[in-house]
Protein backbone atom coordinates (compact mmCIF):
# COMPACT_ATOMS: atom_id res chain seq x y z
CA UNK A 1 0.00 0.00 0.00
CA UNK A 2 1.59 3.30 -1.05
CA UNK A 3 0.88 6.72 0.35
CA UNK A 4 1.78 9.66 -1.87
CA UNK A 5 1.68 13.44 -2.24
CA UNK A 6 2.95 13.41 -5.82
CA UNK A 7 0.08 12.25 -8.00
CA UNK A 8 1.84 12.49 -11.37
CA UNK A 9 4.87 10.53 -10.18
CA UNK A 10 2.67 7.83 -8.62
CA UNK A 11 0.65 7.44 -11.83
CA UNK A 12 3.89 6.95 -13.71
CA UNK A 13 5.30 4.42 -11.23
CA UNK A 14 1.95 2.57 -11.12
CA UNK A 15 1.96 0.76 -7.75
CA UNK A 16 -0.78 -1.80 -7.04
CA UNK A 17 -2.57 0.45 -4.48
CA UNK A 18 -2.03 4.11 -3.62
CA UNK A 19 -3.69 6.86 -1.58
CA UNK A 20 -2.99 10.46 -2.66
CA UNK A 21 -2.87 13.25 -0.08
CA UNK A 22 -2.72 16.69 -1.67
CA UNK A 23 -0.31 18.21 0.86
CA UNK A 24 3.13 19.83 0.31
CA UNK A 25 6.15 17.52 0.05
CA UNK A 26 7.30 16.39 3.45
CA UNK A 27 3.74 15.79 4.69
CA UNK A 28 2.87 12.48 3.07
CA UNK A 29 1.05 11.30 6.22
CA UNK A 30 -0.38 14.53 7.59
CA UNK A 31 0.36 17.61 9.64
CA UNK A 32 2.72 18.02 12.61
CA UNK A 33 1.12 17.47 16.01
CA UNK A 34 -2.34 16.74 14.61
CA UNK A 35 -2.72 13.11 15.69
CA UNK A 36 -6.46 12.96 15.08
CA UNK A 37 -6.12 14.19 11.50
CA UNK A 38 -3.18 11.87 10.90
CA UNK A 39 -5.14 8.95 12.32
CA UNK A 40 -8.01 9.66 9.91
CA UNK A 41 -5.62 9.92 6.98
CA UNK A 42 -4.13 6.55 7.91
CA UNK A 43 -7.53 4.89 8.39
CA UNK A 44 -8.66 6.14 4.98
CA UNK A 45 -5.42 4.90 3.44
CA UNK A 46 -5.56 1.44 5.02
CA UNK A 47 -9.23 1.05 4.07
CA UNK A 48 -8.01 0.77 0.47
CA UNK A 49 -6.38 -2.53 1.32
CA UNK A 50 -9.76 -4.18 1.50
CA UNK A 51 -11.85 -1.96 -0.78
CA UNK A 52 -9.56 -1.75 -3.82
CA UNK A 53 -9.92 -4.45 -6.44
CA UNK A 54 -8.19 -3.00 -9.47
CA UNK A 55 -4.37 -2.91 -9.60
CA UNK A 56 -3.11 0.62 -10.16
CA UNK A 57 -5.98 2.18 -8.20
CA UNK A 58 -5.33 5.55 -6.56
CA UNK A 59 -7.65 6.77 -3.82
CA UNK A 60 -7.93 10.60 -3.66
CA UNK A 61 -8.01 11.52 0.02
CA UNK A 62 -10.35 14.45 0.78
CA UNK A 63 -8.12 16.43 3.15
CA UNK A 64 -7.11 20.02 2.42
CA UNK A 65 -3.77 21.49 3.46
CA UNK A 66 -5.24 24.98 3.67
CA UNK A 67 -8.27 26.93 2.59
CA UNK A 68 -6.49 28.37 -0.44
CA UNK A 69 -4.20 26.74 -2.93
CA UNK A 70 -1.35 29.24 -2.63
CA UNK A 71 1.02 26.51 -1.43
CA UNK A 72 0.51 24.56 -4.66
CA UNK A 73 1.26 27.54 -6.87
CA UNK A 74 4.40 28.28 -4.87
CA UNK A 75 5.49 24.64 -5.16
CA UNK A 76 5.20 24.85 -8.96
CA UNK A 77 7.07 28.07 -9.42
CA UNK A 78 9.83 28.07 -6.85
CA UNK A 79 11.20 24.63 -7.63
CA UNK A 80 12.65 22.42 -4.95
CA UNK A 81 14.93 23.80 -2.27
CA UNK A 82 17.69 21.25 -2.72
CA UNK A 83 20.88 21.59 -0.80
CA UNK A 84 24.26 20.41 -1.99
CA UNK A 85 24.66 16.68 -2.46
CA UNK A 86 27.25 15.94 0.17
CA UNK A 87 28.72 12.45 0.08
CA UNK A 88 29.34 12.13 3.83
CA UNK A 89 26.70 11.29 6.47
CA UNK A 90 24.59 14.38 7.15
CA UNK A 91 23.84 14.22 10.86
CA UNK A 92 20.97 16.29 12.19
CA UNK A 93 23.22 17.34 15.08
CA UNK A 94 26.70 16.72 16.51
CA UNK A 95 25.45 14.40 19.26
CA UNK A 96 24.21 12.05 16.55
CA UNK A 97 27.63 12.06 14.90
CA UNK A 98 29.36 11.33 18.20
CA UNK A 99 26.94 8.50 19.09
CA UNK A 100 27.26 6.93 15.65
CA UNK A 101 31.05 7.09 15.79
CA UNK A 102 31.13 5.59 19.29
CA UNK A 103 28.79 2.84 18.18
CA UNK A 104 30.92 2.09 15.15
CA UNK A 105 33.89 1.76 17.45
CA UNK A 106 32.10 -0.84 19.56
CA UNK A 107 31.50 -3.46 16.93
CA UNK A 108 32.88 -4.45 13.54
CA UNK A 109 29.54 -4.24 11.85
CA UNK A 110 26.06 -3.59 13.15
CA UNK A 111 23.67 -5.71 11.17
CA UNK A 112 20.60 -4.29 12.81
CA UNK A 113 21.04 -0.59 12.52
CA UNK A 114 22.98 -0.04 9.35
CA UNK A 115 22.61 -1.90 6.11
CA UNK A 116 24.53 -0.97 3.04
CA UNK A 117 23.84 -2.13 -0.45
CA UNK A 118 26.88 -2.27 -2.67
CA UNK A 119 29.52 0.27 -1.70
CA UNK A 120 31.05 0.27 1.74
CA UNK A 121 30.91 3.98 2.64
Amino acid at each position, binding site marked *: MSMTSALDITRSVNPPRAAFLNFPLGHTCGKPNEPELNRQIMLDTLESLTSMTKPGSIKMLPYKWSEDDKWGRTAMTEGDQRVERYDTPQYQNEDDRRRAEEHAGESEECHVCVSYSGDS*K
Partner: protein
Amino acid sequence: MPAEPVQYMTRIRDQYAKLGYKPYQWVANEEPSAWQPMRKPLSECRLTLIASGGIYVTGQVAFHFKDDASFRAIPTDTKTEDLRFAHFAYDTTDAKIDPNVVFPIDTLRGLVKEGVIGELSEHAFTFMGGIYSSRRVRDELAPQLSERAIAEKADVALLVPV
Protein backbone atom coordinates in the same frame (compact mmCIF):
# COMPACT_ATOMS: atom_id res chain seq x y z
CA MET B 1 -9.97 18.50 -5.20
CA PRO B 2 -9.49 21.85 -3.51
CA ALA B 3 -6.14 22.60 -5.18
CA GLU B 4 -4.77 21.11 -8.38
CA PRO B 5 -2.18 18.43 -7.58
CA VAL B 6 1.32 19.79 -8.10
CA GLN B 7 2.90 18.49 -11.31
CA TYR B 8 6.29 17.49 -10.00
CA MET B 9 7.46 15.85 -13.19
CA THR B 10 6.81 19.04 -15.18
CA ARG B 11 8.43 21.21 -12.55
CA ILE B 12 11.57 19.10 -12.40
CA ARG B 13 11.76 18.81 -16.18
CA ASP B 14 11.59 22.60 -16.49
CA GLN B 15 14.12 23.10 -13.70
CA TYR B 16 16.61 20.70 -15.25
CA ALA B 17 16.19 22.34 -18.65
CA LYS B 18 16.90 25.76 -17.10
CA LEU B 19 20.04 24.35 -15.47
CA GLY B 20 21.17 22.76 -18.74
CA TYR B 21 20.83 19.20 -17.40
CA LYS B 22 19.56 16.30 -19.48
CA PRO B 23 15.88 15.47 -18.88
CA TYR B 24 15.41 13.06 -15.96
CA GLN B 25 14.35 9.55 -17.00
CA TRP B 26 11.27 8.98 -14.87
CA VAL B 27 10.20 5.42 -14.12
CA ALA B 28 7.11 4.67 -16.18
CA ASN B 29 5.53 1.29 -15.57
CA GLU B 30 2.89 0.27 -18.07
CA GLU B 31 1.65 -2.43 -15.73
CA PRO B 32 1.30 -2.10 -11.96
CA SER B 33 3.40 -4.54 -9.94
CA ALA B 34 1.94 -7.85 -8.82
CA TRP B 35 -1.47 -7.73 -7.15
CA GLN B 36 -1.82 -9.58 -3.85
CA PRO B 37 -5.32 -9.69 -2.37
CA MET B 38 -5.60 -9.45 1.42
CA ARG B 39 -5.63 -12.95 2.86
CA LYS B 40 -6.95 -11.96 6.28
CA PRO B 41 -8.42 -8.89 7.95
CA LEU B 42 -6.03 -6.02 8.70
CA SER B 43 -6.73 -6.58 12.40
CA GLU B 44 -4.88 -9.91 12.05
CA CYS B 45 -2.07 -8.60 9.87
CA ARG B 46 1.51 -7.69 10.60
CA LEU B 47 2.36 -4.40 8.92
CA THR B 48 5.84 -3.24 7.87
CA LEU B 49 6.47 0.45 7.37
CA ILE B 50 8.95 1.38 4.62
CA ALA B 51 9.69 5.11 4.33
CA SER B 52 11.97 7.12 2.07
CA GLY B 53 12.17 10.37 4.05
CA GLY B 54 15.74 9.85 5.26
CA ILE B 55 14.76 8.86 8.81
CA TYR B 56 17.38 7.35 11.15
CA VAL B 57 17.69 6.80 14.90
CA THR B 58 20.30 8.69 16.92
CA GLY B 59 23.27 6.29 17.14
CA GLN B 60 22.89 5.13 13.54
CA VAL B 61 24.99 6.47 10.67
CA ALA B 62 23.11 9.28 8.92
CA PHE B 63 22.39 9.16 5.18
CA HIS B 64 24.57 11.09 2.76
CA PHE B 65 23.19 12.89 -0.26
CA LYS B 66 25.08 11.43 -3.20
CA ASP B 67 22.93 8.47 -4.31
CA ASP B 68 22.97 6.82 -0.90
CA ALA B 69 21.30 3.47 -1.60
CA SER B 70 21.63 2.17 1.98
CA PHE B 71 18.74 1.59 4.34
CA ARG B 72 18.21 1.56 8.10
CA ALA B 73 16.29 -0.89 10.26
CA ILE B 74 14.42 1.07 12.96
CA PRO B 75 12.95 -0.93 15.86
CA THR B 76 9.22 -0.19 15.92
CA ASP B 77 9.35 0.51 19.66
CA THR B 78 11.89 3.32 19.16
CA LYS B 79 11.12 6.49 21.08
CA THR B 80 9.77 9.10 18.69
CA GLU B 81 12.12 11.73 20.15
CA ASP B 82 15.12 9.60 19.08
CA LEU B 83 14.23 9.87 15.38
CA ARG B 84 16.35 12.09 13.12
CA PHE B 85 16.31 13.26 9.52
CA ALA B 86 18.88 13.45 6.72
CA HIS B 87 17.44 14.35 3.31
CA PHE B 88 18.10 17.07 0.75
CA ALA B 89 15.03 17.10 -1.46
CA TYR B 90 12.28 18.20 0.90
CA ASP B 91 11.85 20.66 3.76
CA THR B 92 12.31 18.57 6.93
CA THR B 93 11.16 21.33 9.30
CA ASP B 94 7.79 19.75 10.06
CA ALA B 95 9.24 16.23 10.12
CA LYS B 96 11.65 17.35 12.86
CA ILE B 97 8.72 18.79 14.82
CA ASP B 98 6.62 15.64 14.36
CA PRO B 99 8.24 12.67 12.58
CA ASN B 100 4.79 11.20 11.95
CA VAL B 101 4.33 13.47 8.94
CA VAL B 102 6.71 11.24 6.96
CA PHE B 103 7.29 8.33 9.40
CA PRO B 104 3.84 7.58 10.87
CA ILE B 105 5.11 5.43 13.73
CA ASP B 106 2.89 6.83 16.50
CA THR B 107 -0.10 6.85 14.16
CA LEU B 108 0.48 3.16 13.41
CA ARG B 109 1.24 2.24 17.02
CA GLY B 110 -2.05 3.89 17.96
CA LEU B 111 -3.96 1.82 15.41
CA VAL B 112 -2.36 -1.37 16.75
CA LYS B 113 -3.53 -0.40 20.25
CA GLU B 114 -7.02 0.19 18.85
CA GLY B 115 -6.99 -3.23 17.22
CA VAL B 116 -7.29 -1.84 13.68
CA ILE B 117 -3.90 -3.28 12.74
CA GLY B 118 -2.81 -6.63 14.18
CA GLU B 119 0.79 -5.67 14.90
CA LEU B 120 3.85 -3.95 13.46
CA SER B 121 6.88 -5.94 12.35
CA GLU B 122 9.94 -5.76 14.59
CA HIS B 123 11.54 -3.08 12.38
CA ALA B 124 10.50 -0.33 10.07
CA PHE B 125 12.83 0.25 7.13
CA THR B 126 13.92 3.63 5.92
CA PHE B 127 16.10 5.08 3.20
CA MET B 128 16.97 8.42 1.66
CA GLY B 129 14.84 8.60 -1.46
CA GLY B 130 16.91 11.18 -3.37
CA ILE B 131 18.61 8.48 -5.42
CA TYR B 132 18.94 9.41 -9.06
CA SER B 133 19.63 5.92 -10.33
CA SER B 134 16.31 4.09 -10.48
CA ARG B 135 18.31 1.04 -11.60
CA ARG B 136 20.17 0.99 -8.26
CA VAL B 137 16.89 1.24 -6.38
CA ARG B 138 15.28 -1.53 -8.43
CA ASP B 139 18.25 -3.89 -8.50
CA GLU B 140 20.01 -3.20 -5.18
CA LEU B 141 17.85 -1.46 -2.61
CA ALA B 142 14.32 -2.71 -3.27
CA PRO B 143 15.21 -6.43 -3.23
CA GLN B 144 16.94 -5.98 0.13
CA LEU B 145 13.95 -4.16 1.56
CA SER B 146 11.51 -6.83 0.44
CA GLU B 147 13.83 -9.54 1.73
CA ARG B 148 13.85 -7.89 5.17
CA ALA B 149 10.06 -7.40 5.16
CA ILE B 150 9.56 -11.05 4.23
CA ALA B 151 12.07 -12.19 6.89
CA GLU B 152 10.03 -10.30 9.48
CA LYS B 153 6.89 -12.00 8.20
CA ALA B 154 5.08 -8.91 7.00
CA ASP B 155 1.55 -9.40 5.70
CA VAL B 156 1.25 -5.80 4.53
CA ALA B 157 3.89 -3.27 3.50
CA LEU B 158 3.02 0.40 3.86
CA LEU B 159 5.22 2.52 1.60
CA VAL B 160 5.65 6.16 2.54
CA PRO B 161 7.57 8.19 -0.02
CA VAL B 162 8.33 11.90 0.20
